[in-house]
């Protein structure tokens, strides 16, 4: 019995964490999902990504950070998939009238902002002062050396070819 309790322990913790943090996951869906179907799919994807991150975690990252990274990464993949379907209807369509009204108001107040700004807003609304945006996104492309610059020098180019980054 003790063994079975031990086996259930971490998984039980994970489930409790995911259940208690579901509001946080729904929060990012407000920024990226345009309809009920997308909203539910993104929510399920983030939950499963967070569960995978926490179960296979390496290093010293906290569960909160891994959950937020799952939110941000899955939201980015969601945006990429949407960009690949230019004909998709992007109008806001939710089932409950209150939610629909709030979403329309929220999106109109937010206006056209980049995904990075959406992620920053999401983090701001979460009141997690100990977690910075760089903990979730890493350095932006403007801070990363471009591959064109690397090609000018043979050795770094060869290194880039041999060592995948």
């Amino acid at each position, binding site marked *: 019995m003790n063994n079975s309790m031990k086996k259930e322990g971490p998984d039980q913790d994970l*489930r409790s964490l*995911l*259940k208690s943090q*579901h509001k946080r996951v*729904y929060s990012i869906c407000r920024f990226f999902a345009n309809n*009920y179907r997308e*909203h*539910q799919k993104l929510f*399920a*994807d*983030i*939950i*499963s*990504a967070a*569960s*995978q*991150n926490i*179960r*296979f*975690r390496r290093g010293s*990252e906290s569960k909160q950070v891994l959950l937020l*990274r*799952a939110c941000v*990464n*899955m939201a*980015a*993949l969601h*945006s*990429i*998939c949407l960009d*690949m379907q*230019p004909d998709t209807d992007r109008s806001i369509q*939710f*089932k*409950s009238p*209150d*939610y629909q009204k*709030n979403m329309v*108001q*929220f999106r109109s*107040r937010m*206006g*056209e*902002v*980049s*995904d*990075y700004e959406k*992620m920053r*807003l999401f983090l701001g*609304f979460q009141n997690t002062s100990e977690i910075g945006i*760089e*903990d*979730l*996104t*890493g350095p*932006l*492309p403007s801070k*990363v050396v471009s591959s064109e610059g690397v090609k000018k020098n043979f050795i770094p180019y060869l290194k880039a070819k041999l060592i*995948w*980054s």
Partner: protein
Amino acid sequence: MELKNLQESWDSFPEVSMEERPVLSSDLEKIVVKNPLSDAFYLKNKIRIRIVAGSLLLLYNIYRLRMLYKYGGPGMDQQVILFFLLSYFVYFHVRLLLFADYPALLGLRLMPFLQKIETILDKYVFSFGILSILSGFYTLTLFGKVFYFSRGGSSLLLDNGIYIWLIIIFLSVSYYILFLHTLIPKYKKLLAAVRKYKAGIGALPQKK
């Protein structure tokens, strides 16, 4: 965008709604075992299948090389090149699988995560080149067997050195063109979308 207005709007979301209902334990059980990555982003199974197939072909190739070394016969040069190609094919895919590290992939920060997805897709697209050369070799072997049996034991096709290499090149290029028009576009489109997103993440979205 005024932050105060936005915060006000954020706070006015209903506490309970159909869209944001608490997750049930039974639903959670199903969700946590689901793979979060969609088919196009998740190449683990495809890479695994290639590694197994490549390893089996490599074993058969080693056996054939041993037989040729012991008893002699035509096609030694072909088998040696095939050995190096298969070894590289298996090595490349094992390296790709280890690099991708799918269980920990979603735990990365966004930019390294997108960079890794980009590299995986880029290398996967490249692997179709090796696959087309191997397909060229094995299609020729198949043709050779068909000729061998249909002509009652004489394999003229496999005895003619220059033509063999020409046929292999022709078949490899044909296979690559076939892949280029069937399987590769899906991954190239995805790769382009990831690159575009990565480059424009901080920029304002274009109005559609």
